[in-house]
């Protein structure tokens, strides 16, 4: 019964989305205030959007319930779950598959639309109606996809004795929350896209639009940042390869929307504060959403083979491709038709905060283009029968060409004034970061002469940027500094920290690959590690061989490390569980391989100085975003509250009433 209720709820939500689109579109066709019926229809759009979100959420709740109960008469549950899995993985199984993750997407999108309908009061009503209609249009595509080619509630007969289980690689607490995090990001960008479409249709591209859109972009950006950081850390410790970024198409699928969102966030900031970059902001809104759709297409269409590609059904791939073409093509057409009607915003000088933000916007877009081309190139050549793969030798230097100058401008930009400034005014503030950069450059060259160019520049610029990023706080009353300023400082500092970690990891890591007998001691970097024992252990749905290593840092007291080679039964698969030990100055990473014929165990050991800074930096970036978001929301509420009080006073004592 639960499955049928879920399906009915999904159909109802789809019907409401259709109603939301049609009523919104129809109410916009007439002229302002001339038509009573159209005004009433427009008034209906908000409640319908709220209801649509609620129904989609209920439908998702039904699926989650089926997974928690492990109702094996439902095909999706039978394929992806197992009765003896721990509770949290049963729940995570809901979205750990193609159909469930698409339902999650539609649900989050519905809830986001509901939230816009409930709280957004700053824009003209027409713009909101157009925005919600655009949002319904996007949602409808996903509902159609679910209902016609990916029904999550399909029954199976006869009912199997037990389920297939969840891919062991995905049975990890971090990964249980990784997909939803990225989806919140993607969906946030779809809201930003809807706002852009709404503003284009009603010709309301201005600071008010930027202020309404900004919290959504910020929210999406925070989720994407956390999602990418968590995904990177997951790949690092779960795959047992010691790498933290592989330029895998699936990773790029999350990086590209992030790059676009970062650019959009900053250009929306310029539009909100200075009423410049109007067309550019709209364009980025379209690009950012397109990138999240491209990401979904790459990941979900089965065109790539990876743990993420659940759907290998070509019909589904074509369905997503058609959706992609409709959305992006439609948005670009609308943009082409309306962009000329967007009047030019305020101007600014070549040395100004706007100009520095433009520089970084263009650089981010260029990096986006590089990543996009590198990701799509193998797909294009494969269509012509040549198989290639594109890896770090392409992405690293090409990305750095734009990323390194961007870091320099990032250090200077926040110090510049809006509209017009001189370098002379900010020159003195930049002496310290400049000197620090040069000092690190020289010191690294002297101490580590063999270092690569990219890690060297990365390290030096990271130190300079870290110092420069806190300079905007100097001379301010810290208690009165607005939260968004704190957010900017923390985010920029976070980026410097992350880049420092990346540079240090690639320059100073040491690796040992050895075969060792129990009792042997192996050294890697400053560590000496004794393989004390190898013993079998068992978990709820796996068995493993676990190495007991006693690791000692420069002869200090030993730390126990317990890497495992795990064997799962349903589905049958073996994974390496690495063991990590974190110190303030780096991380020791240990993996156990197989037993050789001569009784020696294969061990793979890394000492990675300052590697945790990568993810710490990522989290700081996200924290900065969160601070800015809270600051923006509070100031938005305050403004609304004051506007309402002024309106109330006017009502109490109408202007011109001289009694």
């Amino acid at each position, binding site marked *: 019964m639960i499955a049928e209720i879920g399906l009915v709820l999904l159909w109802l939500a789809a019907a409401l989305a259709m109603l939301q689109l049609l009523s919104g579109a129809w109410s916009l066709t007439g002229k302002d205030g001339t038509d009573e019926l159209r005004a009433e229809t427009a008034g209906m759009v908000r409640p319908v959007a709220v209801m649509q979100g609620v129904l989609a959420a209920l439908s998702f709740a039904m699926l989650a319930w089926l997974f928690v109960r492990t109702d094996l008469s439902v095909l999706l549950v039978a394929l992806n779950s197992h009765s003896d899995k721990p509770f949290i993985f049963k729940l995570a199984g809901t979205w750990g598959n193609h159909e469930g993750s698409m339902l999650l997407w539609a649900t989050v999108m519905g809830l986001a639309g509901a939230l816009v309908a409930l709280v957004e009061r700053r824009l003209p009503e027409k713009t909101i109606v157009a925005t919600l209609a655009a949002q319904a249009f996007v949602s409808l595509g996903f509902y159609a996809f679910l209902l016609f080619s990916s029904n999550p509630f399909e029954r199976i007969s006869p009912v199997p004795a037990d389920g297939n289980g969840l*891919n062991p690689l995905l049975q990890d607490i971090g990964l249980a929350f990784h997909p939803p995090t990225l989806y919140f990001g993607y969906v946030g960008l779809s809201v930003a896209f809807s706002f852009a479409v709404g503003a284009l249709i009603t010709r309301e591209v201005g600071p008010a639009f930027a202020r309404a859109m900004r919290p959504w972009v910020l929210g999406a950006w925070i989720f994407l940042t956390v999602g990418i950081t968590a995904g990177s850390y997951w790949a690092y410790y779960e795959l047992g390869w010691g790498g933290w970024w592989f330029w895998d198409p699936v990773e790029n699928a999350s990086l590209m929307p992030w790059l676009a969102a970062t650019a959009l966030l900053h250009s929306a900031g310029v539009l909100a504060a200075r009423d410049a970059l109007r067309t550019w902001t709209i364009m980025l809104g379209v690009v950012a959403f397109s990138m999240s759709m491209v990401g979904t297409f790459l990941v979900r269409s089965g065109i790539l083979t990876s743990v993420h590609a659940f759907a290998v059904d070509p019909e589904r791939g074509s369905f997503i491709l058609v959706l992609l073409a409709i959305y992006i093509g439609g948005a670009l057409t609308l943009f082409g038709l309306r962009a000329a009607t967007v009047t030019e915003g305020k*101007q600014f000088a070549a040395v100004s905060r706007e100009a520095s933000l433009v520089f970084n916007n263009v650089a981010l877009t260029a990096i986006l283009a590089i990543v996009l081309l*590198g990701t799509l190139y193998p797909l294009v050549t494969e269509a012509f029968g040549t198989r*290639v*793969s594109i890896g770090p030798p392409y992405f690293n230097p090409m990305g750095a060409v734009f990323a390194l100058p961007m870091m320099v401008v990032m250090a200077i930009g926040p110090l510049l004034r809006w509209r017009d400034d001189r370098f002379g005014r900010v020159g003195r503030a930049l002496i310290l970061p400049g000197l620090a950069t040069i000092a690190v450059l020289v010191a690294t060259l002297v101490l580590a002469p063999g270092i690569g160019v990219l890690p060297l520049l990365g390290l030096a610029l990271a130190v300079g940027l870290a110092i420069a990023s806190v300079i905007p706080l100097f001379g301010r009353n810290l208690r009165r500094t607005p939260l968004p300023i704190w957010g900017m400082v923390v985010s920029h500092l976070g980026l410097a920290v992350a880049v420092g970690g990346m540079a240090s990891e690639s320059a100073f890591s040491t690796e040992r690959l050895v075969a060792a007998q129990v009792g042997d001691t192996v050294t890697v970097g400053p560590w000496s590690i004794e393989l004390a024992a190898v013993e079998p252990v068992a978990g709820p749905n796996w068995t493993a061989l676990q190495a007991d290593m006693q690791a000692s840092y420069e002869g200090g007291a030993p730390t126990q490390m317990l890497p495992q080679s795990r064997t799962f039964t349903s589905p049958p698969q*073996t994974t390496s569980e690495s063991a990590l030990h974190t110190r303030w100055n780096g991380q020791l990473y240990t993996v156990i*391989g197989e037993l050789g014929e001569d009784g020696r165990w294969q061990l793979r050991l890394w000492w990675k100085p300052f590697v945790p800074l990568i993810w710490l930096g990522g989290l700081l970036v996200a924290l900065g975003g969160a601070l800015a978001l809270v600051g923006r929301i509070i100031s938005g509420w305050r403004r609304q509250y004051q506007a309402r009080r002024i309106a109330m006073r006017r009502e109490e004592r109408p202007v011109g009433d001289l009694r």
Partner: protein
Amino acid sequence: MAAAVKAKHQRLVLLVIALVVLIGAGLLAAWALRNQASYFYVPSDIASDPPEAGRAIRLGGMVQEGSIQRQADGVTIDFVVGDGKAVVPVRFSGITPDLFVEGSGVVAEGHMMPDGTFLADNLLAKHDENYMPRELADMSDAQAKEVVAETE
């Protein structure tokens, strides 16, 4: 400069700058893609048109029966990859994937050495039914057809 940008057509100037940078990025990317792309080879490709030594490529094929030999250091293995027409010796140092066995498919990332041995940095084997390197999935189909053709 400031005066020039302040002129009436600032939007046009910005548009041109953005376009120039983006087209530049595109050209740079196209150039780098041609140089850095790692091509996929099967042993008969290597026999007929050997790639230059040191260039990053990927090699796919079947691990030949009885060819896996572990070296004295315990972590280096030598094996032979074949596709029915030609064979290539491969050397790899590291922990092999779980389903790396003789008579099974493998994709190796690495480069050719001057002596004609393929030095693998990474091995991709079939993880399970749902996750295998794309080349392997296609290769198995082709091989299945070959077997059918032989038995007919």
